[in-house]
């Protein structure tokens, strides 16, 4: 898939939680081809402490509106700057990067999409694509508390949504892997993105049940292109770049058994 450096135009920046924004970007030309699970490297201007680009996963691509949606957690000065963008601002993007999720376009397959925190972001585009292909994905989304649950109305458009919060303020109390759904139903394929401990727990569940599972990793990266070899993950094939060989890996490839 061809990669581009584009100055995209900010259409809107919406606060979707106390700590998260949704940035909608557009361009005069049709946006490039992108698949769920891929990401964008954003240049952050005006932040003295931000040197490198910030990798942000593709949250959604609205082809009709020619919009690229990015969900940003404001954790440091760089991401805070991104949250302060205004409509009409330009944002320099290198995209699309990484491999994306493997799609299994069979209506007979039952798909579970498990996300936590800002890691829910790429699952929206993935779920939307599944729905468009005639599948009915189930989302299992976790957060610390109700106000950290992100874009719930959007997720509900594309499938059933199950929720856990650590404080029990919404959905079932506990972690995603404690949700009763996992005991009651059998899935054929799991996709997960979120904090590493959560993904490792999901991977353990998938292994025990013999379910295919793909996880999207977020190791610290510099180039985003497979050139610097900074973001490596140990795999059955040696050190692989999360930016180029991932970010999505089948859990069979990851050395997560311990």
């Amino acid at each position: 898939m061809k990669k581009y450096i584009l100055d995209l135009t900010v259409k809107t920046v919406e606060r979707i939680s106390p700590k998260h924004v949704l940035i909608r970007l557009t361009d005069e030309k049709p946006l490039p081809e992108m698949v769920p699970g891929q990401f964008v490297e954003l240049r952050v201007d005006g932040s003295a402490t931000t040197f490198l680009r910030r990798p942000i996963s593709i949250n959604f691509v609205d082809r009709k509106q020619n919009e690229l949606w990015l969900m940003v957690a404001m954790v440091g000065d760089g991401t805070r700057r991104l949250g302060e963008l205004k409509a009409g601002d330009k944002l320099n993007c290198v995209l699309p990067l990484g491999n994306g999720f493997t799609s299994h376009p069979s209506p007979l397959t039952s798909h579970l999409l498990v996300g936590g925190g800002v890691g829910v972001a790429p699952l929206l585009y993935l779920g939307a694509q599944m729905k468009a292909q005639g599948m009915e994905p189930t989302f299992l989304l976790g957060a610390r508390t109700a106000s950290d649950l992100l874009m719930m109305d959007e997720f509900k458009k594309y499938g059933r949504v199950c929720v856990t919060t650590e404080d029990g303020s919404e959905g079932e109390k506990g972690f995603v892997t404690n949700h009763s759904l996992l005991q009651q139903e059998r899935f054929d394929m799991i996709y997960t993105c979120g904090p590493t401990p959560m993904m490792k727990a999901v991977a353990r569940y998938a292994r025990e049940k013999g379910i295919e599972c793909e996880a999207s990793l977020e190791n610290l990266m510099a180039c985003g292109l497979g050139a610097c070899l900074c973001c490596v993950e140990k795999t059955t094939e040696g050190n692989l770049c999360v930016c180029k060989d991932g970010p999505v890996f089948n859990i069979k490839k990851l050395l997560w058994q311990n």
Partner: protein
Amino acid sequence: MAKLNVNIGALSLKNPVMTASGTFGYGLEFADFMPLDGIGGIIVKGTTLKPREGNDYPRMAETASGMLNCVGLQNKGVDYFCEHIYPQIKDIDTNMIVNVSGSSPEDYAECAARIDALENIPAIELNISCPNVRDGGMAFGVTCAGASSVVKAVRQAYHKTLIVKLSPNVTDITEIARAVEAEGADAVSLINTLMGMAIDIEKRKKVLSIGTGGLSGPAVKPVALRMVYQVAKAVKIPVVGLGGISTAKDALDFLMCGATAIEIGTANFLDPAVSIKVRDGINDWLDSHGCQSVEEIIGCLE
């Protein structure tokens, strides 16, 4: 259009802009963003005789105007390069230069000899300055005797243009430069990264897996510039300047300080097309200042 071509020994460059090892992959990763044949050379990833897994993650820490890395020469070894990578890059119409590293003079020489046999690799850059490996690398580059021993061994095994990449982590870089010149290096390139450190105060631990890493990016440019200036005065062979170059202005600084060519490293991460912009910027500056050729400004500092 000013004349941009320069020579490093027997090596002809269409312009003085190259990309630095470890920051531009094998070039192919950047082909979507810029014409690879538009720059004077591409120095590909550090290559060793045997495959290396490199250091553990985390390998990178962002700093003010730069970054630290401790990748540790991860590569699949010279045989893999010759069989699988070389066929993919041999027809790129620019100087494809291989950065060679090792853990003993014999290692370096053997690796260089394999690359000597590749028709379309006109030069190597000898890495005696990697700060991130214990067995060799910078160990050779910080003493005159160590640097000499590696260059001597490689010079016997390698017959094309030999560029030696120097470490800034030394008391007097001109001594090392003179030592490798005496052993028959065709050129020197400098600087490799400056050894540094980063701390995670919440965990009260070092950020990088091996504790230290090499600093690169605009933060190191003034240090690099000073060293290039000193070395250019100390040796007769050409000097290739690098360290924090991200604009044509930066490149012109190095050329005026005596560098015959320059390498762009970390800036490739921020703008994958930066090297073409630097080339064009050099040309524009020369044109606007009435210079016919880039050679007019090399070492022109008063």
